[in-house]
């Protein structure tokens, strides 16, 4: 009975804390500018099903893709078992679903294989990060915290899987000894192998089984509350993020309607802009100038570095890293959120995404090639943020490199980016 009460208390606290943190993230995302991405729902569901549910972009890198799918399947399917654990926890039952009989055995048996798969995949991932030191996992933005974050997640998953398998091994052994409520249920194709390493003693086995049971479920609750602070939040946001992803041709940059009004007014003095015309600054200086999809992108980023490792600027040693653009956006947004929590919504700390986090040098290194958006397994668009920041630099601060300013004035005065006379534009037809 005490166990049940304790369990309900822990579960309640974990879920309460988790929803509080999720609400905060939701609030932060909604600090972004509105953007309507509700068009074409059929296509959006399809994109989500393919990219998030089906992991279609993960396999562009086959090794990581395969291992990730293993962990993903393990995570999703083992949750069925967690459901049983939660029910058992609340009602003080043991293996409540065991009435399913043969089907239950198949379920438990496949969970075991998945658990083993997850365990091995996490170990390989740890080795890739820490022993093989894959280049993709380093870079200026991969400081102490993001590196540790990745390792913590992997270690946590390994511990959870070990606890799960050990629990089953003890259970299996107790079942064999015909003890108490340890009824014969489930199949243990994996954990039966470690059963022999456990003591052949009832009290010790019950203790082991109970300890692992609690360790596993409390571990899950702790993990649940770690997620919102971590890149691991992608396991939730990947779904909305892909649903709301950009469905247009990647080459299309949005036409700013605020600019259209001004340009039309300039070309035709009789033009009157519509009453609901958006006002305010052009481009983005801080996270609150970006749209909410940009901000959701930042919370979804898994820091996998696929974008950066395919970025031509980064490959050739430039400062730009699209992963850093996303991480900076998230860090700054978190900072803005904390400011709101402590000082109220109107507080300004005098800092901004542009300048304090992302430098001009990074922005001007981008070739707008879309390699990053193509590579991202969850359809994040770092380029959209880069362009908004460039727009601010150019249109609000007139702060472009001199050569780019030259290009602008050539386009304006000569209708071409070079200093040629417009009258010579047709000369190509002559000098054959």
């Amino acid at each position, binding site marked *: 009975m005490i166990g049940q009460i304790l369990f309900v208390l822990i579960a309640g606290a974990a879920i309460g804390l988790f929803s509080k943190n999720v609400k905060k993230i939701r609030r932060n995302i909604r600090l972004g500018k509105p953007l309507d991405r509700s068009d074409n729902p059929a296509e959006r569901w399809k994109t989500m099903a393919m990219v998030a549910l089906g992991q279609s972009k993960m396999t562009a890198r086959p090794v990581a893709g395969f291992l990730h799918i293993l962990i993903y399947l393990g995570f999703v399917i083992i949750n069925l078992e967690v459901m049983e654990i939660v029910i058992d926890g609340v009602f003080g039952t043991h293996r409540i679903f065991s009435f399913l009989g043969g089907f239950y055995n198949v379920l438990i048996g496949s969970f075991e294989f998945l658990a083993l798969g997850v365990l091995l995949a996490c170990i390989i991932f740890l080795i890739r990060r820490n022993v093989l030191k894959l280049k993709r996992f380093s870079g200026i933005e991969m400081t102490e915290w993001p590196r540790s974050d990745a390792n913590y997640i992997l270690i946590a998953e390994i511990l959870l899987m070990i606890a799960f398998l050990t629990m089953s091994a003890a259970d299996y052994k107790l079942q064999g000894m015909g003890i108490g409520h340890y009824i014969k249920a489930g199949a243990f194709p994996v954990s039966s192998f470690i059963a022999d390493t456990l003591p052949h003693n009832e009290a010790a086995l019950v203790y082991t089984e109970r300890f692992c049971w609690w360790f596993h479920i409390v571990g899950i609750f702790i993990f649940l509350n770690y997620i919102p602070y971590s890149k691991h939040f992608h396991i939730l946001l990947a779904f909305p993020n892909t649903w709301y992803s950009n469905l247009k*041709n*990647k*080459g*299309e*940059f949005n*036409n700013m309607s605020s*600019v259209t009004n*001004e*340009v*039309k007014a300039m*070309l035709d003095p009789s033009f009157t802009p519509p009453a609901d015309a958006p006002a305010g600054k*052009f481009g983005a200086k801080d996270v609150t100038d970006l749209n909410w999809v940009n901000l959701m992108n930042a919370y979804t980023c898994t820091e996998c570095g696929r974008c950066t490792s*395919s970025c*031509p*600027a980064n*490959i*050739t*040693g*430039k*400062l*730009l890293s699209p992963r850093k653009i996303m991480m900076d956006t998230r860090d700054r947004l978190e900072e803005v959120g904390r400011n709101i929590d402590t000082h109220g919504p109107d507080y300004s700390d005098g800092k901004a995404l542009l300048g304090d986090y992302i430098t001009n*040098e990074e922005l*001007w*290194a*981008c*070739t*707008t*090639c*879309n*390699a990053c*958006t*193509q590579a991202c397994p969850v359809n994040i668009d770092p380029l959209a943020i880069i*362009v908004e920041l*460039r*727009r601010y*630099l*150019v*249109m609000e601060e007139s702060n*472009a*490199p001199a*050569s*780019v300013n*030259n*290009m*602008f004035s050539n*386009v*304006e005065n000569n*209708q*071409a*980016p*070079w200093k040629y006379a*417009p*009258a010579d*534009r*047709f*000369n*190509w*037809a002559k*000098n*054959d």
Partner: protein
Amino acid sequence: MAAEGQEPEVLFWVGCAGSFDERAQKITRAVCSILQHVGISYAVLGTEESCTGDPAKRAGNEFLFQMMAITNIEVLNAYNIKKIVTACPHCFNTLKNEYPNLGGNYDVIHHSQLLQQLIDEGKLKVTGGESFKGKKITFHDPCYLGRANGVYEAPRSVFEILDAELVEMKRCKTNGLCCGAGGAQMFKEPEKGNKDINIERVEEALELKPSVIAAACPFCMTMLRDGVKHFEKEAEVEVLDIAELAARANDL
């Protein structure tokens, strides 16, 4: 040739590079010769054409872009233009994707798509010109044709009629590596780094030991040629636009 009264089948949008850049002018003439060869009536805007505004837009100057766009749209609409072909992926992307909601609705294709159509219809074959049979050709996907607009196969259709051996770089199609010119980089010095992007790209192409590096964009053309020069391989490797390949194979 500038549009005068009668309505041609298609407007050939030459673009700034195609108009002014000496190397790109040759691509322009190759496209014209193919259009004439297959008997498509076409027009160009000549001095009435202006920059699409692409480099300004990519660099963040939305004002300048929209000024150019709205002015161009007025000209295009005044001539009642319906169909546009262009040899520049940047013009293609801008005209096709960014002009419609400013009032410019045209059927826009890139010259690679025109070539593919002509090949599929049997109007463009290989006769009487230089033979590229069995020659090793590698193709550099332009970002604004490939990833930006999903056109990967159209330019490759040209290598099929040439009966050339198409050797792909590891980074091709969706994984293609930029030449380094996009996003207004063409008009500025690269930021600090340890290598220029076009060098990285040409290095990859040269590993395949091709006799031709094929391009489909005037800016890629410049970048790739500079890269080939850097490695002093001009004697062994030619950088050619797909239109030039098709024209040469037909002795146009």
